[in-house]
């Protein structure tokens, strides 16, 4: 009896198609001769580099999937988590801190580091949630402000601690290999790439979030609050609690993304600069493309990562790699219209009641 609704899938696919077509036009304008091979590189991109290419896609996809899941989850519960970047940065900081300061932990050091990353991200999200729940401050405003607070907090703390700070390069110190997230043989399969078990963690988290949302009592409450606050109050659901839990979880997931990214042994360091990391915002794009469905977000995250990886190879054809950013932006732009598109489609199949 139960029918699956394919309209969101179709609208996301349409957005992707539109993005690729326009992307191709841009390639044509920039460099007509090499547009076709350039475009093929985007499409075939990572595959032209064999397993290493695929490994890279998985590596890029890890933070995208996690941040996307975070934003999508919050969105399903009626909240807009635009503070993913701050939470990501706090997570990164927590992980780096444990990674540098807690060598005594031995083999579980990276586990503890990721847990701390979750906790810091969660606190960051939780503050936003609590402000919304108890003082009715819009979460968009507080989470944007928290992005900056996190940024300067992290900069200040790292710079102020000689154990963390590498003054020569104005960034955090190198983390020892024992503290890195293990690759667990993935580096053997996808030799040459930086992929590690982060991707597995990301996929598992997305699946867990899916199960929470769809199958559990807890998810029922969270979503009910997101859909209709009055009805959930009527049902006896504690709305404030739901908002706070929801933001804590969203924050923890972004924190985890940050933790994994900075414990990956790819030479990523927390640089002391006044720029907010883009990952949290990328999460919004991924969530949009995946219509806030955690399972779909796994795929949209992989897809965006795939394009990003393809973008690097585009440079072989004298294109600047920013073109891929434009294409991604167009795709996101169109999927932001996905609601509109969905409506048009469903109108055509005359099911768009109210």
């Amino acid at each position: 009896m139960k029918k699956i609704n394919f309209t969101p899938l179709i609208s996301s696919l349409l957005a992707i198609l539109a993005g690729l077509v326009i992307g191709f036009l841009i390639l044509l304008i920039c460099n007509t001769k090499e547009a076709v091979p350039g475009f093929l590189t985007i499409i075939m991109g990572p595959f032209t580099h064999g397993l290493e290419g695929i490994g890279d896609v998985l590596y890029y996809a890890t933070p995208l999937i996690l941040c996307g899941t975070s934003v999508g989850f919050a969105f399903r519960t009626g909240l807009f988590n635009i503070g993913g970047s701050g939470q990501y940065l706090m997570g990164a900081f927590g992980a780096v801190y444990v990674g540098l300061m807690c060598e005594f932990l031995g083999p579980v050091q990276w586990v503890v580091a990721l847990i701390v990353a979750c906790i810091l991200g969660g606190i960051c999200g939780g503050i936003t949630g609590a402000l919304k729940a108890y003082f009715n401050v819009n979460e968009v405003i507080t989470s944007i402000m928290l992005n900056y607070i996190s940024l300067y907090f992290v900069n200040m703390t790292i710079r102020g601690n000689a154990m963390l700070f590498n003054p020569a390069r104005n960034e955090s110190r190198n983390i020892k290999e024992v503290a890195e997230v293990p690759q667990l043989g993935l580096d053997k399969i996808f030799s040459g790439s930086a992929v590690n078990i982060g991707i597995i963690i990301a996929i598992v988290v997305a699946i867990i979030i899916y199960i929470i949302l769809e199958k559990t009592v807890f998810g029922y409450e969270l979503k009910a609050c997101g859909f209709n606050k009055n009805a959930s109050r009527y049902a006896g659901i504690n709305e404030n609690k739901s908002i706070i839990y929801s933001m804590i979880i969203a924050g923890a997931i972004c924190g985890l993304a940050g933790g994994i990214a900075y414990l990956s042994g790819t030479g990523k360091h927390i640089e002391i600069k006044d720029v907010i990391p883009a990952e949290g915002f990328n999460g919004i794009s991924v969530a949009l493309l995946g219509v806030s469905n955690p399972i779909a977000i796994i795929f949209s995250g992989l897809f965006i990562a795939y394009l990003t990886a393809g973008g690097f190879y585009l440079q072989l054809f004298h294109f600047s790699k920013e073109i891929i950013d434009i294409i991604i932006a167009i795709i996101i732009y169109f999927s932001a219209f996905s609601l509109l598109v969905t409506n048009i489609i469903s109108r055509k199949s005359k099911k768009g009641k109210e």
Partner: protein
Amino acid sequence: MGSEYAIEMKHITIKFGNLVANDDVTLQLKKGEIHALLGENGAGKSTLMSILFGLYHADKGEIYVNGVKENITDPLVANKLGIGMVHQHFKLVENFTVLENIILGCEDEKMGLLRMDKARKKITEISSKYNFDIDLDAKIENITVGMQQRTEILKMLYRDNNILIFDEPTAVLTPNEIDEFMEILKNLKAEGKSILFISHKLDEIKKVADKCTILRLGKVVNTVNCEDCTKEQLSEMMVGRKVSLKVDKKPATPGDVVLKVRNLTIAGEKGHKDKVENVSLDVRSGEIVCIAGIDGNGQSEFVKGLTGLMKVKSGKVYLCDEDITYATVRHRNMGLMSHIPEDRHRDGLVLDYSVAKNVVLQQYFDKEFSKSGFLDKNEILKYTHQIMKEYDIRSSNGEYTICRAMSGGNQQKIITGREMTKPHKLMIAVQPTRGLDVGAIEYIHKKIVELRDRGIAVLLVSFELEEVMNLADKILVMYEGQIVGKFDPKTVDLNELGLYMAGSKRMNLEVA
């Protein structure tokens, strides 16, 4: 121009999945006529009107407007053809003013700046022509439903629509407002407008409509002249059997006090007087106590105070001897209190959830419906199936149907069914039959009496005197937040009751 019909819909068929919502429906609306549409909940009335207004597209059939075949692809096209619609559930922007809502979508602008003065003048003219007493600068969220409806009507008139569709306009109005609305309809007709009008209330149809088309299960049963038919005939055509709106009930045998309210006071907005003042009353098991009164006299706030949705300023509420004045909503819900709320979309349903999920809205976490934190889908579906069968809830996709895609009456039935089925000792029902067809009303009334006979205490708030007279064992009148009268329905005189409701007479009651 030549046609005598403003609208002709011919052989309209539309399916939602397997459900045929309109099946070969033909409807003709003469110019200057009021044409009523009657049918059970889910018969397809709203769907048919949505097709005319361009919200849905028929699978088959044709529409002629003023004799010309038209393809109404969306509401903008409908608007151009002079068709306007007031929906069953209003579509106003809550934090806009009346004026802003009216001009929304056809703003008058000059160099990108909104120009309100011309619009304001035109609207003032229209509203004085029809005697609409409305404050154009009030925000929608602060005005009564009656006023919201006038806003919707003004919206149509402002757009110079000549063909007006009203989908259950009176379901949300008080008897007084209904009378005024009937006058408005007559005036509109006198102006030469052609009107399609959906209602479940046969009185109204008899009063204003010229013709009536009756739908059942998506098919046209008949189109009749309203003059030639009695109310009984109409309802029989609609439901397919005889309906009796008179409830048979034995005399009540009240038992212990279940709900005891003492000196309850609920504050109004800042700077306003209290909404509920010093109300004391008892409701015993096995009796139906009705609160009668004109909408807006504190009934909503009183109920919200009892159900925990609004803060109490002072006073006490006891349920089965337990002080629940400050208890959580959840505590009240658990086996004690059932509540059919006034506003089904705002409070009663999560519209984006399926029927099944809505049916367990207060019980989803209960042992019966969940196992170690996971929802027990099978149990929930079984329970839903049972309620849907018992209350004849119709939808296109069974238990999985998203409530938003259901007819208004069927949405109401979900709430009523849910609240009546879940364990409780006290039933607080506000307008439980709002928007239901006569057959369904008959059934719900029977159920309420059944609850009473099972020993449940029932507190009913209704703006419809007929319902009050039919069901009540005791009538209390609420006026300006106070209980001003207490009556026995067997002996009360309706005129007398009216005087109390209007505040011109009052009794001094310690405890009602």
